[in-house]
């Protein structure tokens, strides 16, 4: 089929324009000297300066990154255990429950997870005096949600993977524990990395669950951004969005180039 319909190209172009025009407009406005974004007041780096001078925002960035890193690491551990159990152990008592508990959080609105986690933490605190609402509670709630996403990634990798390597190792007398670390883990490493990045991004991006479970003085980056955005368009947020978009684009391109190069070497 050589005829490339003109209508298809137009529709694709419109779709990509829809995806990218808002992003490029934010980047352009971040260099606008004028506070009123509808007027172009000349090129300026003023908002980047104000962003870097905003201690509240910088504290929130640091907090969010710490929460996201701990969350992603714990979520990969939990998600790998769930994924391993669901894809390799066959039938075992509680399999249906584990599968349900792994898929339910993903179809559940954030507000529900936020409220229910908060009520758990309040109840725990009444009974055991632990945990204090703050970074701990945000991290615990984030781990619970993101582990389910890691499970999906790991599970799909495991089911598509050839089981014969593991079986061969087992036939040659390797213990299950050793098989996991020497054979399975290296094979699912890309899935673990993808799961870690996914969990990290989800945690870094979450406003709703963090708002419910945070305590005084533990506002995360999305919470600070939200409180500013509710007041209207703020130029510093344009600068922040630009930094994040550029960082993500760089990361994704580098990863893409690395993968491309590896594929070429493999060929």
């Amino acid at each position, binding site marked *: *089929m050589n005829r490339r319909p003109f209508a298809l190209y137009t*529709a694709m172009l419109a779709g990509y324009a829809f995806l990218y*025009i808002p992003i490029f407009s934010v980047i352009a406005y971040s260099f606008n000297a004028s506070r009123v974004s509808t007027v172009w007041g000349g090129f300026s780096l003023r908002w980047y300066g104000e962003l870097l001078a905003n201690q509240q925002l910088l504290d929130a960035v640091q907090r969010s990154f710490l929460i996201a890193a701990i969350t992603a690491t714990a979520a990969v551990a939990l998600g790998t255990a769930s994924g391993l159990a669901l894809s390799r152990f066959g039938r075992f008592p509680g399999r249906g429950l584990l599968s349900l508990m792994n898929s339910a959080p993903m179809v*559940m609105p*954030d507000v529900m997870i936020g409220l229910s986690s908060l009520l758990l933490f309040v109840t725990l605190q009444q009974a055991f005096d632990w945990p204090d609402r703050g970074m701990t509670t945000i991290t615990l709630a984030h781990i619970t949600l993101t582990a389910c996403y890691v499970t999906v990634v790991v599970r799909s990798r495991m089911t598509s993977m050839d089981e014969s390597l593991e079986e061969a190792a087992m036939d040659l007398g390797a213990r299950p524990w050793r098989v996991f670390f020497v054979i399975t883990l290296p094979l699912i490493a890309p899935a673990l990395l993808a799961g870690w990045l996914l969990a990290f991004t989800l945690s870094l991006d979450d406003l709703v669950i963090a708002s419910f479970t945070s305590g005084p003085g533990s506002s995360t980056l999305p919470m600070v951004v939200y409180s500013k955005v509710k007041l209207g368009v703020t130029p510093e947020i344009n600068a922040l*969005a630009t930094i994040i978009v550029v960082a993500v684009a760089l990361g994704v391109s580098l990863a893409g180039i690395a993968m491309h190069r590896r594929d070429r070497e493999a060929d």
Partner: protein
Amino acid sequence: MRAASASGVWGFWFDVVRNLFGWFRLVGREFRTRRGRFLVTSLPMLWLALFFLVPFLIVLKISFSQAVFGQVPPYTALVEHAADGAVSLRLHASNYAMLLSDPLYVSAYLKSLLFASVSTGFCLLLGYPIAYGIARARPSMRLVLLVLVVLPFWTSSLLRTYALMGILKANGLLGQVLSAIALVEPGWGILYSDAAVYVGIVYNYLPFMILPLTATLMRLDFTLLEAAEDLGAKPWHAFMRITLPLSMPGIIAGALLVFIPAVGEFVIPDILGGPDALTIGRVLWIEFFTNRDWPLAAAVTIAMLVLIVAPTLLFEYVENRRADQEAANT
């Protein structure tokens, strides 16, 4: 003296390391038995039970209590211990009665369904051509196009929603462009309206529609289309009779991925919508943060569980069963 204390320190660490190895050996031995598997399954099981199942039991409990303002936590205890040692259980169904009697809650639920279903339709209309184009593109081009679709997903959705504000607001980019070609009056904008919410949901969830659609279309055997063409079918006819039915699994998967999170969406209607863009997620947020009525917010959560999450899980279960059976039959 110093040597003795040093040997004491070393002795201590030696014991630690030896015990650690002993522990590893023990764990290793566990893993050789069926109990090893039990350990691997019980860890996520216990975690999810504690942090996911138990919370909903607590929510259910609190939804039957009544709000008391000015104390922590702001609700009544269900079980009361009287001075004479008698224990009384007091369940208040008033929160659920409120959900049914006040039209605010029913209309918020219907509005959420409306936002989600119309946005899903627009995502399909906008996403299908993109997915089709990606599936038919050359492999090297395909990768670039896919990355361009996924890239926005890795940036914050809050910031992307914020980016739309600058476009949709009065005298924003869209208003300026449209007034320059004299389609609208200067000062026009649709921020803080239902239309802005639709744009926001479609903008945020479009990648979730495109990805499963692309995956399905890439598996599609395009020689079928050539065969249809050779047999004299018009392109449109061939599309309706072959491509569309064969891409149905992708359409269903994409529609679910958009519809489900869109129903409970809070951020987009809250930032882009007006005060009347009240979705069920926003109502829950307001009951909790503004009105500080925790029991009513808990009742809303239970209602969402029954009306949104349970049907979704049931649908997914039935779909998976059907897919498994189809796979078994072929």
